[in-house]
């Protein structure tokens, strides 16, 4: 799950477990399957997190990141 990936790692999205508005929003912002996502950082309190998809920085909460299944980082 994306929420468990440490900051600085890049992973590839496998699929979503979100539904409805959350799913739509994630897809709109570029979190579609087969896309590479880099976890940039987490807020000082550990939540939310900032990710980079294509050239965009997106913030999402741990709860939403936990709905995105990703392949483990190569390294």
């Amino acid at each position, binding site marked *: 799950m994306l929420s468990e990936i440490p900051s600085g790692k890049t992973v590839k999205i496998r699929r979503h477990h979100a539904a409805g508005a959350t799913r739509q929003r994630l897809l*709109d912002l570029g979190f*579609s399957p087969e896309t590479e996502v880099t976890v940039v950082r987490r807020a000082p309190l550990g939540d939310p997190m900032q990710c980079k998809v294509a050239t965009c920085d997106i913030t999402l909460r741990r709860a939403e990141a936990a709905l995105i299944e990703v392949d483990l980082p190569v390294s």
Partner: protein
Amino acid sequence: MGLANSLNTPSRPLLVGLAGQQNAGKSTCFNMLTGASQHVANYPGVTVDKKTGSYRHQGSRVTVVDLPGTYSLSSFSLEERVARDFLLLEKPDAVVNVVDASALQRSLSFTVQLLEMEMPLVVALNMMDVAGRQGVDIDVSALNKRLGVEVIPTVGRKRQGKEEIKQAVAQVVGRTAGQGLRIDYGHLEAGIVVLAAQLAQSPLAKRYPARWLTVRLVEGDAQVEELISAQEDDAGGALACAQTIRADFERSQGLSAADYLVGCRSRLAAAIVADCVRVAQQGKRTLTERIDRVVLNRFAAPFFLVATVFIIYQLSIVQGYELTQYWWPILARGRAFIAALLPDAGLLVDPPLRSMALWMVDSANGLLNYIPVFLILFSLVAILEDSGYMARIAFLLDKIFHAFGLHGQSTLPFILGGVFAGGCAVPGVMATKGIPDERSRMATILTVPYMNCLAKIPFYTLLVNVFFVEHKSWVMFFLSTITIFIALLVARLLTATLLRSRETAPFVMAMPTYHAPTFFGVGQRVLERTWQYIKKVGTIVVAVSVCVFTLLQFPRLSDERMVAYNGQMAAAVTAFSSKIGTTRFAEQLHDPLHLLKVVNLYADYKTARFSAGNSAAAVRAIDANFASANPDLFILLKPGKESDARQVNSALRALESKRKSLRRAIKEAQIGNSVLGMVGRALEPVTRWAGFNWKINIAILSSFVARESSVATIGVLYQQGADENRNLEQRMGSETENSGFTPLHALAVMVFFALYPPCLATTIMIKVQTGSSKWMLFSMLFPTALGFLVAIGIFTGGSALGLTGIQMMALLYGLVVCLTIATYFTKKA
């Protein structure tokens, strides 16, 4: 209909919709196109802003509507539904799609949806400068060819591309279907073509593009499904058909059809980007990334956050207050100007028109006095918003806010509402519009009024200076922070109960790149917010101040009492006459009308001298002024060495002093006798438990109009000793010492005042933002009940435990902080 036609029918302006994603620079483009001619209203039935503006191009008028910024055009959120309905139902003559060149792929998914809706489209490729700095090179003509619509590179903030867009809009008007590229939906394409052909026969196809309807049906869009089922004939057929297409696909591909459709669009966008965009200097960090590495650093971030908040506080509240020293004399001059136009003051009782009008002016001035503070505060907030740091604050604080049912974006309304000391709940409640999560938005609206707005401060200062002289800064710190804790607790309570069933939205948003704010952008927002504030003062507050004035003035004092006061005044006048009997002025001052004129002049002169302070230059200026306006009488105001004039002057002083104290006595008796006074007294048996006497009750009641008036009311009620030039603090102190009013009383009153319902203007704004009178009523009743309970707890509890005011304050603070921390760590049910 082409432009040539529209020239012949000037009566109907062209309608252009401005669509795009959030942070694509839609508003700057809107400003660039329409300039100052803007108008903000709501879309019918919802609380989404509809900004309309217009411009002239080649002789025809063009109306531009700024649609809400959304990431896509599905029907999941209110904004999306509003934007989509506008495009489909109002059928604009052209749509300008503002695209963020620095986030092209994401933006193009939106463009593709617009093309699917067969809109006459112009693409404004905005933020070309940002893209350039990121090393992103976009081949505009290739993009133009690929999309099949006009693409205009623009830099909205520098107003580049304005004429080109207007030109392109004029050309695209009237073009409809068939333009632009068509998305290939791969495995679903065959099914979509069949169903689209079938839907093209239905009457719906006259209003909506058949292919768009089909794709939406397959995607399972609730709104379109409803639209189809509202049709009589083959509605069921189309629905069932879409169902089959979806099911077949999902069985064969093992993938959700809706995801696949979105995927097709984003793959198309990616392919276009791959064809038209070259990224140079890959791997080089952008400026935004470098700033964020410092500003959002785990350890440095809290420091920057606190520093930002501190700077806002220092510049707007502290420096802004300094500025009011220069601003207030201007307002005072306005008041003097109006006072001169009104009928003259009477000896004891003023003409009703005069007292009413001056009451209104004073109420308005009390609020207008804060304008310098708001200009600075709103400028700084607008700079924070436009620069992109506000989004980072939301990112940093979201975890805390979320734990209490609020949202990272609740930060802005709280800052505007006055997190520590100073702000106004009206623009604060207004700013909740930006919060995408309905439940958090409601909770924010209902808790912003707990913040310490500027108008609460004078009341705190007054009580603190009387009762907590040794602990001033501690008490101010207590008041400014406890309100935040209580707001958080209330938000948690409301979201867990009343607001539980409200729609929530994911916290997934794009973090904007940093921009240098523009003067125009910031200036416009500042003027807009300040104007809201002035409008509040000009309309609601003035209107209600008249009501409060009436409630304080009626019923009038009984004739017997007035006869007594008049008798005392007559005695004073007789004494005056006998004192000056031997002077050369005796004859002319025997005429009552002339005497009144002289006494009023004397009072005006004293007031002017008092406000001039010790500055010799100001005193000289005032003397010159009065001397030239009243050459004959000035000698009585400033007698010099002439003994007759000195004698009159000293008699005048005695007369004026007697008149002043009588007028005060009447005023106090009048307030005590008025409707509001009776209510205040009637409530005393209940409010006694919270330590409020009837005078405080009246102040609280009248402060509902606008908090400012509470200090004025208290000023009237605690007025013994004003003749000796003692200030309100001293007067209140000495009177209350005798009546047994302790710091514990004061604490209860201050905390009640902190929690007390929002002023009338704010409750009206709450009605606008929640769209319901019930919530408005709730926003008044709940804080009253809460504030009263807490005040009872402080006063009755504190008395029972034998605590002093400052001890009780520490106890309460400890309790609230512990409760807040406990709530933070409690998992939500």
